[in-house]
C-alpha cells in the first residue's frame, strides 16, 4: 500500500490506545506495589499511543517535506482486489455462523464450491468433483482423529 495511506492505520492505533487506556483505568490500575488487572494493558496503551504519535509526526513531517520540495509524490495505490477478499471473508463468517445449524457436510460443500469459483476454477465438473472429494477426505480424516463434526438439521 502506498505510504500516503499510512495515516489511516496511525489514526486507528491512536484511537485504539485511547480506548485501551480508558478501559484499563476502569478495570482498576492499583499501584506498583499491588498492581491491578488494568495496569499492564494501561502501560501497553501508553506505549501504543507514544509510538503511533511518533508515526503520525513522521508522516506529517514527510508530507511537509514533499510539499516544500514541490514534488508530486502522490502515487496510485498498489493493485488491490478487495472485492474477492471481502467476498471470502463474508462467506467464511456466514459459514461459521450457520455451520452447526446446517451441518458440516452440506454447509462445507456449498462453501468449497464458492471458494473454487472465487479462486478462478472454471469447470463445473471439476468444482463439484473436487468439492465432494475434498469434503469426504476431510470428514474421514478428522473423524478418524476423533473430531466430532456437526450434523445439523439434515442429520448428515
Amino acid at each position, binding site marked *: 500500500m502506498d505510504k500516503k495511506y499510512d495515516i489511516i492505520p496511525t489514526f486507528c492505533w491512536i484511537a485504539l490506545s485511547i480506548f485501551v487506556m480508558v478501559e484499563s483505568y476502569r478495570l482498576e490500575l492499583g499501584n506498583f506495589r499491588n498492581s491491578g488487572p488494568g495496569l499492564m494493558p494501561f502501560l501497553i496503551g501508553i506505549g501504543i499511543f507514544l*509510538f503511533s504519535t511518533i508515526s503520525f509526526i513522521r508522516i506529517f513531517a514527510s508530507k511537509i517535506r514533499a510539499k516544500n520540495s514541490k514534488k508530486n509524490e502522490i502515487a496510485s495505490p498498489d493493485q488491490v482486489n478487495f472485492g474477492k477478499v471481502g467476498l471470502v471473508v463474508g462467506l467464511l463468517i456466514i459459514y*461459521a455462523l450457520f455451520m452447526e445449524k446446517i451441518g458440516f457436510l452440506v454447509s462445507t460443500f456449498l462453501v468449497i464450491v464458492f471458494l473454487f469459483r472465487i479462486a478462478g476454477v472454471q469447470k463445473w465438473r471439476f468444482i463439484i468433483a473436487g468439492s465432494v472429494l475434498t469434503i469426504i477426505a476431510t470428514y474421514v480424516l478428522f473423524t478418524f482423529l476423533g473430531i466430532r463434526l456437526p450434523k445439523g438439521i439434515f442429520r448428515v
Partner: protein
Amino acid sequence: MDWLPSIISGFQIAFQPGNFLYCFIGVFIGTLIGVLPGIGPGGTIAILLPITFGISPVSAIIMLSGIYYGAMYGGSTTAILVNIPGESSSVVTCLDGYQMAKKGRAGPALGISAFGSFIGATFCVIILMFLVYPLAQAALRFGPPEYFSLMCLGLTLVTYLATGSFIKAVLMALFGLLLSTVGIDIISGIPRFYYGSATLLDGIGIVPLSMGFFGINEVLTNIEAPVERLIFKTKIGSLLPNLEDWKRSTWPIIRGTLLGFPLGVLPGGGGTIASFVSYSLEKRVSKHPEEFGKGAIEGVAGPETANNAGAVGAYVPLFALGIPPNVVLAILVGAFMMHGLTPGPRIIIDHPEIFWGTVASMYLGNIMLLALNLPLIGIWVKILKVPYRVLMPLIILCCIVGVYSVNYNIWDIVIMVICGFIGYILTKFGYEGAPLMLAYVLGPMMEQAFRQSLIISKGSFSIFLVRPISVACLILGAFLIISSGLSYYRKAKSIVQEG
C-alpha cells in the same frame, strides 16, 4: 549429566514406530510446504496444531519440528527451479541457484543445497544437544526480573530486526501484548476485555490467532495476487556435485554452519537472517565475487547451510529459557501449551523424553530429508505445477476444521477469520505479523514476571537495575531502540539538507 544414556533414550523414543512415522510426516509436510510458495511453516504448524491433540506430546513436537526444519530444505527447490523462494530463508538462493539452473546445472545446485543443509543441520543438532542442558541449568537460577528483562530484549531484537519500519514492528509487538491480556487476569482472577463473551473470557486462543494471521492472511493475499510459477524447463540431470563443486562449496558450508547457528539462537533469528548474512560473507571472501548472481555455487551452498543451521539454533532459547526466538517457534510454544507443557529449563528435568526425543528425531529427520530431497526431487517438481486455485479451498477447509476442533466453538472460526482479515489489512500497510505473534506468546509470561518482580521489590523498579543479567538486557534493549531512533534522525536530517 549423563549424556550417553540420555542420547540413547532419545533415540529409543525417536525410533518408536509412532514417533518415527510422525517424524516422517512432519518432514514430508515441511518439504511440501517449503516447495509451495504461498504457505509457510508458521501457517502450517498453526493449521496442524489441533490435530496433535490426539497424539502424545512428544510425537506432536517431533512432527511439528519436522515441518519447521523440513521447510528449510523444500524452499530451495522452488528458489532454484522457479526463481521464487518457497520460504523467506531461500530468498538469496534464487540469486545464484536459478542462474545455475539456467546454465543447465539445476542438479548440482539442488544437490549441494541438500547436502549443505544436511551437514549444517546435523552438526548443529550436536551443538544443540550439548549446549541446552548447561544453559538450562543456568536459567534455573533466573528470577522474575531476569525473565522480564530477557523477554523485553527478545521483543526489542525481533522488532529491531524486522524487515520493515521499526515503529510499525513495535506497534505490532504492543498489539500482540494487548491481545494476550484479553481474558482472565492471571494474578487477580478478574476478567479483562471480554464484554460478556464466553469465548473471550478464556482469552483469544493461539490457534485462531495464528491460523488467522498466518493461514487465512496468506490465502487472502494469494487470492488477490496469485503467485505465478513458471518452471524453468531444463533437465535436472545428476544431482551429485562434481569434485570442483565440492572444492568450491566446502568452506561456504563450514562457514554457513558456524555462522548460522549463533544467528539462529538470537531473538528474531532463525534461517532467514542466517542465509542473508552467509551470502554477503561468501561474496566478500570469494576470490571471484563477480561470479555471484551469475550462478556461483558458493552462493547456494553457504546460505542453504546457514538457514538450516539457524533453524536448529533457534531451539536453544526455546528449550533452555522457554523463549521462542522467532514466530514459527512461538506457534510451536502453542503446541507445548495445548499439551499442558511449558517449554523452558524445567522441561529437560521434568519431561526429558520431550527434549531428547525431539533432538534425536532431528538426526533422523535430516536423513529422511536428504532422501526426500534428492531421489524424489521429481515429485516436488510435479507438485509445483498444482495451481494455487486448487490449493486455496483446501487450506481454508483445514483452517476451519482445525480451529473448530479445539473447543467445538463456531466463534473461534469467526475470530480466526477476523484475525486473518486484520492481518491482511495490516500486511497491506507494511505491518509484519511476526512481532505480534511473538509478543502474544510472551505476553502472559512477561506480565507475570513484571508483576511478580514488583511484588518482590515492594513496588520499586530498581529491582530490574540491581541484578546484573537484568540490567545488561535492559541496557542492550535501550541501545537498540536509541540506535534505531538515531539512524532515523540522521536519515531525516540528510533528506532535509538535500532539499
